[in-house]
């Protein structure tokens, strides 16, 4: 099963006003490893047309990318209350 299909099973309350994670495109531009794209379990980090593309909407809030990125590009905060992933089982 593809990761996209797995993510489609999940319930999110997406916050359209606040992105709880942001990346600094300047830093990503020169990144030698793009480890975020391998580490993120929700495939939020992708290389498209040679550029890093990040979307917070599929994020399951694990915190991995903040550790994975060793170049200081990721700014990680908790989503605002009640927003974001809502697991059914956990």
């Amino acid at each position, binding site marked *: 099963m593809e990761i996209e299909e797995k993510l489609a099973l999940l319930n999110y309350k997406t916050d359209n006003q606040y992105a709880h994670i942001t990346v600094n495109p300047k830093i990503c531009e020169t990144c030698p490893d793009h480890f975020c794209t*391998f580490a993120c*379990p929700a495939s939020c980090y992708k290389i498209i047309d040679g550029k890093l593309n990040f979307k917070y909407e599929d994020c*399951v*809030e694990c915190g*991995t990318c*903040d550790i*994975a990125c060793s170049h200081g590009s990721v700014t990680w905060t908790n989503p605002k*209350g009640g927003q974001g992933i809502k697991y059914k089982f956990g």
Partner: protein
Amino acid sequence: MSEFDAIVVGAGPAGSSAAIKMANAGLKVLLVERGDPPGTKNVSGGILWGKDLSQIIPDWEKTAPLERFVERKVTSFLTADSEISIDFKTLKFSTDRTGYAVLRTRLDQYLSKKASQAGATVITGITVDSLHMENGKVLGVVNEEDTITSDCVILAEGANPRVAIKAGLRQPPGDDDVALGIKQVYKLPEATINERYNLRGNAGFAGEYVLSFLEDDVYAGGFLYTNKDSISAGVVVSLSKLRENGKTRSFDIMEKFVSHPFISRLLEGGQIQEYSAHLVYEGGYSTMAKLYGNGYMIAGDAAGFSFSNGMVIEGMNYAIASGIMAGEAAIQAKKEGDFSDQSLSRYGRMLEESYAIKDKKTFRGIEKVTWSPLVHRIIPRIAENSMMKLFNETGEPKDHVVRILLDSAFDQGISKSDLLIQGYRLMRRM
């Protein structure tokens, strides 16, 4: 005057346990959880070793949302073609119960409801942004523009403790402190589960796997637990190994685990209901920070209290135990009207004397062994090799078992003395 005696950040097992303990003693407690309802942000495998719960909820075994108790426990090495396991089951567990499989959304809602019944004010759907501090003393919590004051704050935020990190009370974790846990829940009829795993009634299966079939140097452990009418299957991936590898994606490892021929047949016909991921603390004792100070205590995963060797993960039990102890320390502090560093050092002492820390000390450095080539590559290959030699019909007379073992090791390019030394190290740490 503070508005509350204690504010607890996070309604996981650590936070709710602390809140129940304190509210039962009459403290004015505020429990704040960002998930709505509690549990919706959390992931465990999860086997709950819940004996400490009896201290705060005497009848938890009757009232908590427990899926199945562990009757059958399997520990396996999975190579590409083989599974070598210890399969342990005992009827003794039906009287001396061990762990119970749980699902976190259910467990966490149960625990937070208990906190509310005990008299704590439970607020869900609100994220604590930061601590209100003055001269190193914690005076309350901040959300949006508001500050809520309390005599002490118990930080029980889990494995990604942003509030504690922001306040400088905890170091941000690194590759060696945490692993990435990924999990899938499969729906399967109760009868199918019972038949397939050879279970009756409320008894359950707990399988833990070393995934030595993974290519390159990606190390990961797997787990598979039965719930009432679903299965929890997951992997724990070493971040440092994933980084070294630099070309495998974490979510592909999950897929590889459930696609392994011996695992996929255990899940056959099951419909995926949920995919989830969460960090797991796995560092030994050395990663633990100072866990209290002026007006604050840190409990559960936020304090680094969980243990994982890449297969077995324990953390809910330590979370509960440390939550209760933090609660106890706050109760004493309230009696004395003193929430200083000095007074709360009581929490540190209780931890020192408890099994939670003793376990941590015993296992100090264990991650170096359990994430080693010995466990993930060498032992599985030797075992597979020897088994083939023992059971494969070649027409030639069979050697002595020990001879076969040592020869297999030699086939893997390991000297006998090396094997003995490594084996001894592992035994001592386990």
